[in-house]
């Protein structure tokens, strides 16, 4: 930028369009010609002074500390994005989220307060926040129980905080491992090896155990498993534990692959036989899965014991909810503690500068999200996957790139980070590869065009040597040096070939025994023709380009 842009601060205090000449032509112009609805948004949210917000490239020194803090705040929020229901937005998606939340709470309250046996399945696509929502409910319930318990410790029996056992199908790949894990978590939470079954003052013992763990953690590694004889009957004793139990099965579908679905059968049987009263506690089993045909895979005897209560968890159902989430995360306010810290560390920073930072940042985010490029990215991403994790991954690099010299997220940054995170090039930097590697790729492409599905090194070398021969036969030279394709020794090509195998560009194809000589092992090339073409164009290697475009 040739015109030095004034600092943001001066521009914020003065509402006139101060630095319009220095505005890059790409940054805001599309907005002016956007659709009516878009124009409405712009007119209501943007004043003329904000137009060149993103062009105020340098941050004035007294605002710089806020940028780091803001980045930290936003990244922390991205690591744990807020639940849709927590955002004040009147929307179907939000309501659906709230309904899910409420139904899990209801279910668990039944188990905890009334000693019911409950089972349910939380079903939703990847990244829709299933685990998150279950965690939130349980922590909320535990919190409320603990506070209640503190208030009226005498009636602690009713409001005892539940024992929560987390199992994951990814880690506990068979029933034995799962049972051991149940045992371990029960011992840790009840505080005694006999699981506190005859005991009635379990809360104290748990506290003792908690304090104990820190000091002698290592010794406990051995002793936190209940006796092996106990282990086999551990599931059936769940309802006689001193406190209600919640068992969460993450990746529920993987538990169905265990032999005879024995664990599921036992768990669901215990749940079904759980009778309220009689001094017994409730048991709840919550399965979390993304597999829609999950129930069909259950064996008949297991299925009949399952309550068939399915709680659905859905990602944002429309784009406005999706964008609301992004806006909420990006506009995360600085915590008071952080703001205070900045103010303490720097005398120049005053209360007003915090305020001006706040408005400036929020305005820049509004501007960004209203640009046509950003909206397109959101729309495309939303139409591909509604995974909130992906949204967070797109926003992360864009935030990280902010520096005091370019303190606002530009649409260009946003688009490029979206491209890298959403559908990255499988082989980036193809054009940076050395000449032997590119020659091999071109040769592989010619072999593929010739109708061969697989290739061997001999074939590649043969193709390459033919090409060099053909190119050198055209007797054109420049300053006494032939300008044909440069010949390469076989060994160099073979080294390049092995390198390309190691980075996954050539992949084994079909069966090959270990006795096959290396130059005859069959491979296939994973790079597309158009990628090779783009790489050659970028590298601008005339000879290779000519060979590539020549029919063989």
């Amino acid at each position, binding site marked *: 930028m040739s015109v030095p842009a004034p600092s943001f601060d001066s521009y914020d205090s003065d509402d006139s369009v101060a630095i319009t000449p220095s505005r890059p032509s790409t940054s805001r112009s599309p907005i002016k010609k956007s659709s009516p609805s878009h124009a409405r948004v712009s007119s209501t949210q943007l004043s003329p002074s904000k137009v060149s917000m993103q062009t105020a490239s340098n941050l004035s020194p007294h605002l710089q500390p806020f940028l780091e803090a803001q*980045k*930290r705040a936003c*990244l*922390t929020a991205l*690591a744990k994005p807020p639940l849709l229901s927590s955002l004040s937005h009147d929307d179907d998606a939000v309501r659906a989220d709230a309904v899910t939340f409420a139904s899990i709470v209801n279910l668990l309250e039944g188990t905890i307060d009334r000693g019911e046996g409950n089972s349910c399945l939380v079903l939703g696509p*990847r990244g829709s926040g299933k*685990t998150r929502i279950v965690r939130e409910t349980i922590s909320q319930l535990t919190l409320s129980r603990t506070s209640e318990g503190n208030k009226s410790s005498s009636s602690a029996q009713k409001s005892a905080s539940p024992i929560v056992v987390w199992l*994951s199908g*990814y*880690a*506990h790949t068979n029933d034995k*491992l799962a049972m*051991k894990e149940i045992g*371990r978590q029960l011992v840790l939470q009840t505080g005694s090896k006999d699981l506190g079954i005859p005991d009635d003052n379990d809360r104290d013992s748990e506290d003792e155990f908690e304090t104990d763990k*820190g000091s002698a*953690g*290592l*010794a*406990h*590694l*051995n002793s*936190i498993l209940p006796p092996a004889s106990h282990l086999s009957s551990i599931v059936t004793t769940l309802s006689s534990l001193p406190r209600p139990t919640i068992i969460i099965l993450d*990746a529920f579908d*993987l538990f169905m692959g265990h032999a005879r679905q024995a664990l599921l059968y036992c768990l669901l049987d215990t749940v079904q036989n759980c009778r309220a009263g009689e001094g017994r506690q409730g048991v709840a089993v919550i399965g979390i899965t993304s597999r829609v045909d999950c129930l069909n895979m259950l064996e008949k005897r297991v299925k009949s014991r399952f309550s068939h209560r399915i709680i659905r968890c859905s990602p944002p159902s429309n784009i406005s909810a999706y964008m609301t989430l992004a806006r909420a995360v990006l506009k995360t306010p600085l915590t008071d503690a952080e703001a205070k810290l900045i103010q303490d560390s720097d005398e120049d920073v005053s209360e007003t500068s915090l305020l001006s930072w706040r408005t400036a940042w929020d305005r820049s985010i509004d501007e960004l999200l209203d640009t046509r490029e950003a909206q397109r990215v959101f729309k495309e991403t939303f139409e591909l996957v509604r*995974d909130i*994790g*992906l949204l967070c*991954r797109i926003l*992360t*690099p864009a935030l*990280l*790139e902010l520096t005091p010299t370019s303190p606002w997220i530009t649409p260009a940054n946003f688009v490029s*980070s979206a491209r*890298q*995170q959403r559908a*990255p090039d*499988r082989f*980036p*930097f193809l054009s*940076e590869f*050395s*000449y032997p590697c590119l020659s091999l790729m071109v040769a592989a492409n010619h072999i593929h065009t010739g*109708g*061969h599905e697989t290739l*061997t090194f*001999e*074939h590649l070398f*043969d193709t390459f040597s033919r090409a060099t021969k053909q190119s050198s036969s055209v007797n054109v030279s420049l300053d006494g040096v032939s300008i044909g394709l*440069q010949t390469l*020794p076989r*060994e*160099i090509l*073979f*080294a390049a070939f092995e390198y390309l195998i190691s*980075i*996954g560009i050539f992949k084994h194809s079909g069966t090959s*025994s270990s*006795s096959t*000589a290396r130059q*005859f092992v069959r491979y296939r090339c994973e790079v597309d023709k158009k990628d090779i073409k783009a790489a050659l164009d970028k590298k601008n290697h005339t000879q290779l380009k000519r060979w590539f475009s020549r029919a063989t």
Partner: protein
Amino acid sequence: MDIKLLPSLLALSPPPFIHIHDPFDQVSYHTDTLKADYHVEIDCIECISPRVLYTRIINGLASWSVSWDNACECWGGRSSGDWSASWDSFIQAFTVLARQLQTVDSQPRFTLLLRNADMLREILPNLIVPLARLSELSNSSVTIIFCSKCPWVDTRPVWGSSPDPLLVVIPPLTAAQTISHLISLFPSPPSTPRISIYNPHLKPLYEHYIQALHSACALTVSDPRQLAYIAAARWPGFVSPVLQEWHASRDARRSGKGPRVPPTNQDGGTSSEGDEEDDDVEHYPLPTTEERMRLLHHFKPSFSSASATLYPRLKHARAWARQNAPPHTFRSSMSPEKALRTEQDSSANTLLQGLTTHVKLMLVASYVASFNPIRTDARMFQRTSDGIKRRLRKGGGVRKTRRGTTTKVLVPFLQLSRSLAGPSPFPLDRFLAIYEALCIEMKGDTVSFDREVTRVQMLTTVTELVGMQLLQRTGADEKMDGSTMLKTSIDLSLSQKMAKQLKLDLSEILWDIE
């Protein structure tokens, strides 16, 4: 996302799972910036079993070193039990470790860098998903960084159970960066003798040398590591004329007599006796621009021959340097010699010397049997009853049709020629027949075979050759009979050399030779 942004991300808010795509193997230049308080770096190639992986992670995070003195105990000693037996106990140990390292105001932050993570897919496929979810499963603040030369789509399990990582790529070094990196590798030990190849005084010359080397080799080799290997192999030879001149002038100064050339040790420096006496920089001049240009001009051909030999590792760098050292009498003022010959793979020549004619003929026969289609044997080796050879070469693929017009018989479109597709197996009987035909062809019709003796001898030789991996048995059975399948493992150039020594024309007996 660029790797440069990663340190700030790890400092601000470390995500649970990151994948670094590193096609140019440059992560080691960045690992220093990725370290957290508790950091462990593991190469997945080493992790042949889950137990190895678990112990490496825990011992690394706890900075526990295994030694003979404590009976090679892992972290926690015997009292903690066998925590590396399964994933559950590993997680348990991990949680205990996290709790131990916890301070009053902060949780420990772990970083696990798994290099060559694509190997997990082959070695420990079941652990990819649990590892990717380690932070979730262990409920602690841990960042798993998978680093691989392959893209994430190649590592990720086929069913979509793994969480998606934050994707990071490492771009290659640019040419200028490569050169400056190579120059920075010039060692700077605290004290070196004045006349040594890595004297700090020689660094300016080294910079020119690296630039010339880079411009000569960059077309074929762009990996900085390989270039550094080549540079290190060529430098002693390159700098030796300068050192010789320094020696000569020093000796002249000392004795006042004519210059004497001491023998130079090519591998690292020269004798350094009495350097302290005349340690003046002026006595050791760097070559002038003209001399330098001449030096570079002289050594330029050897740069490309070095890359052609050393990049595929046809020879050890030290052996190559010794072989291609300039003669002691060489001075930078001399005119350049002709280019050095590129090293060929010498294993073939040594092999040829140790084989008898009989064995060589067998190997040629095996090559012919592997690369000629069976249906052509009769055409290639058939003889009439008079013993006169009737050879019908191909090219007879023209046949008359009924109408009297000719059509060329077309080779099927997708059939790859035998020489490119690799050797095919053949039965022992066919091999022996071809061998005998070749024997007759070589020695004329007069040779009479004692069939039985020859056969026994041949079977022994075949077994020997299989042992030497010059022939391969493709069947599994132990018994050797006529139907045993064999395959050649020699290549065209070697069989051509053998045929030449036997005065056979290989192109005459090969069906499909270009």
